């Protein structure tokens, strides 16, 4: 049967065959599948991603003690290029892109006209006129609409670019032994390109763990050979593939926030009061009032001047060792003050830590006498605990090896 004899309904169905694969597989799926002992998968932006591969706790210690390989391919990636790319991104995002050098990365966020955060992410400057923007949610319509009046080309490259995070104290040793010469010269937030299989792999000294680590981007077709190259070189350095559960623990220790976990993105929120300004989720330091106009500028500065900011994001240290995930925060055990958005017992800090969103003036004016109410399910019965919480600075874990250049080998 050819196209001429197929019915319209059949052709329509054929054009929609994506519904046959409601979960996409990442370019590294074959390797992950082979390594997965526990078959613990979750949905990351439509991709099948491991929550854990063999043991969350051991995976965590791979990040903190040896080297961990984490598949970041589902991260949404945009290529933004053209003569106006810098000016365009400067209007789109909060930080001053003119200060971002070529082959440098910075963490940033972007807002709608009302100053509500649409997402946060990392901006890679690959050339004078070429950038890659990585983030959690999809934003193509917003990015394209923002391009009116700019000579700039915007392409989504989530599917065609594979990404790997290699994190941990021996991550540099792995790269060195995999033959990436001069990678030790990379300072934090530096980018460099290295040859791989007749193509390039872009390596940046970045990560989401607060540890020494790198992120590698490569064309989809070269993904598996890159994995194998790292895997082989990593054996003497105790490389492990890990899932999100372990990574999440380290990012909480590092004090990083996750869109739609620690705050609700402006386009994703259904309820009017869920949106957040940068200052309400700890991103006030990204806002640069001195650079040229950017989306949300007026609203953010007005909110600062008129003191209409409603929330604040804080780091908490909580007594005891029971993680306070999604616990309600109280002031004087009585007045509701906010919500814990992420919490773990930190194996590295040996502290019970949390990230919480508080409603001002709690967290801004009233910073003492805070409590969290933890409900711990113990064999079909909640054990209710009111635990004292103290506001502490983030990151909870600060590792000298994260920034040491040249990087250490162990």
């Amino acid at each position, binding site marked *: 049967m050819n196209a001429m004899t197929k019915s319209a309904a059949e052709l329509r169905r054929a054009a929609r065959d994506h519904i046959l694969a409601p979960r996409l597989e990442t370019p590294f799926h074959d390797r992950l599948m082979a390594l997965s002992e526990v078959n613990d998968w979750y949905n990351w932006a439509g991709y099948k991603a491991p929550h854990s591969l063999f043991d969350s706790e051991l995976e965590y210690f791979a990040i903190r003690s040896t080297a961990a390989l984490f598949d970041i391919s589902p991260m949404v990636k945009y290529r933004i290029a053209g003569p106006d790319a810098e*000016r*365009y991104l*400067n*209007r*789109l995002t909060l930080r001053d892109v003119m200060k971002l050098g070529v082959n440098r990365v910075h963490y940033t966020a972007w807002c*709608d*006209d*009302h100053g509500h955060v649409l997402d946060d992410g990392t901006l890679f400057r690959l050339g004078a006129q070429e950038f890659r923007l990585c983030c959690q949610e999809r934003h193509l319509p*917003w990015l394209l*609409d*923002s391009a*009116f*009046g*700019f000579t700039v080309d915007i392409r989504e490259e989530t599917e065609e670019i594979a990404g790997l995070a290699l994190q941990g104290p021996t991550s540099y040793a792995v790269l060195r032994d995999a033959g990436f010469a001069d990678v030790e010269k990379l300072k934090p937030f530096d980018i460099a390109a290295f040859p791989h299989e007749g193509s390039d792999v872009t390596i940046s000294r970045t990560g989401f763990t607060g540890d020494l680590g790198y992120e590698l981007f490569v064309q989809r077709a070269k993904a598996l050979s890159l994995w194998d190259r790292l895997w082989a070189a990593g054996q003497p350095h105790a490389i492990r593939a890990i899932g999100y559960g372990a990574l999440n623990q380290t990012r909480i220790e590092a004090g990083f926030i996750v869109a739609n976990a620690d705050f609700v993105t402006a386009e994703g929120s259904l309820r009017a009061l869920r949106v957040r300004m940068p200052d309400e989720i700890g991103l006030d330091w990204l806002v640069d*009032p001195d650079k*040229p*106009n950017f*989306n*949300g*500028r*007026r609203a953010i500065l007005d909110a600062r001047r008129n003191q209409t900011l409603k929330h604040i994001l804080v780091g908490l240290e909580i007594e005891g060792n029971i993680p306070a995930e999604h616990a309600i925060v109280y002031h004087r055990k009585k007045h509701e003050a906010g919500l814990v958005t992420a919490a773990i017992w930190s194996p590295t800090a040996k502290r019970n830590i949390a990230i919480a969103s508080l409603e001002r003036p709690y967290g801004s004016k009233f910073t003492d006498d805070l409590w969290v109410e933890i409900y711990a399910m113990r064999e079909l019965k909640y054990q209710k605990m009111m635990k004292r919480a103290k506001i502490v600075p983030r990151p909870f874990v600060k590792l000298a090896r994260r920034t040491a250049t040249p990087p250490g080998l162990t």
Partner: protein
Amino acid sequence: MTSFDAIVIGAGHNGLAAAARLAKGGRKVLVLEAAHAPGGATRGHEFAPGFRSAGLAHLVNRLDADVARDIGLDLSGEGTLLPTTVLDGSGKAITLHGAYGESIAGISAEEEAAFVALRKKLIFQAGILKRFLRRPPPQIGAISLGDLSTFAAAGFGLIRKGRSEGRDFLRMLLMNVADVSDEYLSDDRLKGLLAFDATLGIHLGPRSPTSLLGLYYRLTGEVAGKTGGQFVPSGGMASVAPAFVRAAEKAGVTIRCGTPVGRILADRGRTSGVVTRDGTEITAPIVVSAIHPQTTFLSLVDPAESGTGFVRSVKNVRSYGNVAKLDLALDRIPTFEGLPIESRHGRIVLVRSMEQVERAFNPAKYGEFSSDPVMEVTLPSLADPSLAPAGGCTLSALVQYAPYRLKAGWETGKPAFLKIILETLERHAPGIGTSVVAANLMTPVDIEAEYNLPGGHWHHGELQADQLLINRPTSAASGYTTPIEGLYLASAGAHPGGGISGLPGWNAARHILSAARL
């Protein structure tokens, strides 16, 4: 070099009204006009040797009395309200005398009574809306005392005549003109007139939901205190622009023509002046844009200075014109069959029925012009003999529907549409074809080019429910202020909308002056 307190972009009547008001408020004002003469859409031009057109508008029906008095506009002729005659081709005319048919000739006494009842109802209802016209639209989240008193007055006005009138207002407000006409009237020609008046210049047919708003808008206008009146100033429409210019100059305004603005200066949310297209920078703390909001924010202000959401909403303003303007040079005064000679200096509407208007609209939805168009006609040279050589006559017609985005393209469409219009005129005024010396048809595309009006839309954006009041032109710029501090909107694209009222410009200027007092 002289420095100015405010720069007004565009010397249309709204720009001049804004400039005059600002100057009377003590500001030093410079008006920059791209064309070589002021007047905007009321700027005339010679369209054939010896024959002049007075511009887009051929009647005045909503010039605001407060504006005229305040800026010292010396226009006379208001005393003579012009009649409207409906011709359906049968040779039997209906003529509405006074202000929108205070008395009517050519229909049965029964039908006249029905029209009187409908007219009274519509004028009452339009009166409730009218109080919102002379002030900035209420800003959601920042409702002022003045807003509350306007709401209260509107509410009181609503129940003043009893609950049933109030209920009827809320029932009718968003209805279509066809259903309302059917409720009251039976004469097809009268219904056709209401349908035409409700939809002229708006991309709606009489059966489209909310089409009654267009008629309300017309009836929020008044002349010499009479709702729905229309007149041509002594000296003709060509005297409108000079009157506004005189008022502005008398107030101390400087007007520079042939000076198109290339850029509105803005940095981090604040304007500091303009750069003209020849590169001259003129600074001022206040810039009043009395041109189309889309030109303002999509061409003159660097999009980087606006938010993505704002640019998106400005781009989404619907502003595609649907009316063609015809100027005919004739070697004698035409004779329309059935038109009483004493009514020929008035407005002549060529329409058979409401259904004709609806059917004329249908093709416009699909990017085609009407093959049986409806139009209103005036003979401008009767009031202003200087428009035509001795013995000659000019005819001005607003013809709909003529969609801006014509599928076939206006290059081929224009001669075809002109032929249809001339044939229509020939049916009503046999012999007119042989007296045509020259014809100048301006499609919305021509209007766009001639008057720098995006989409060729004389309201600077559709005058429909979703683009009125707090959404005119778009919510973030609906109170004359814009997201850019110091930059204000003052054209028909701002509240309350188009027509020669002077209100958008005057309201904007008053808002600027009152904000400065705070």
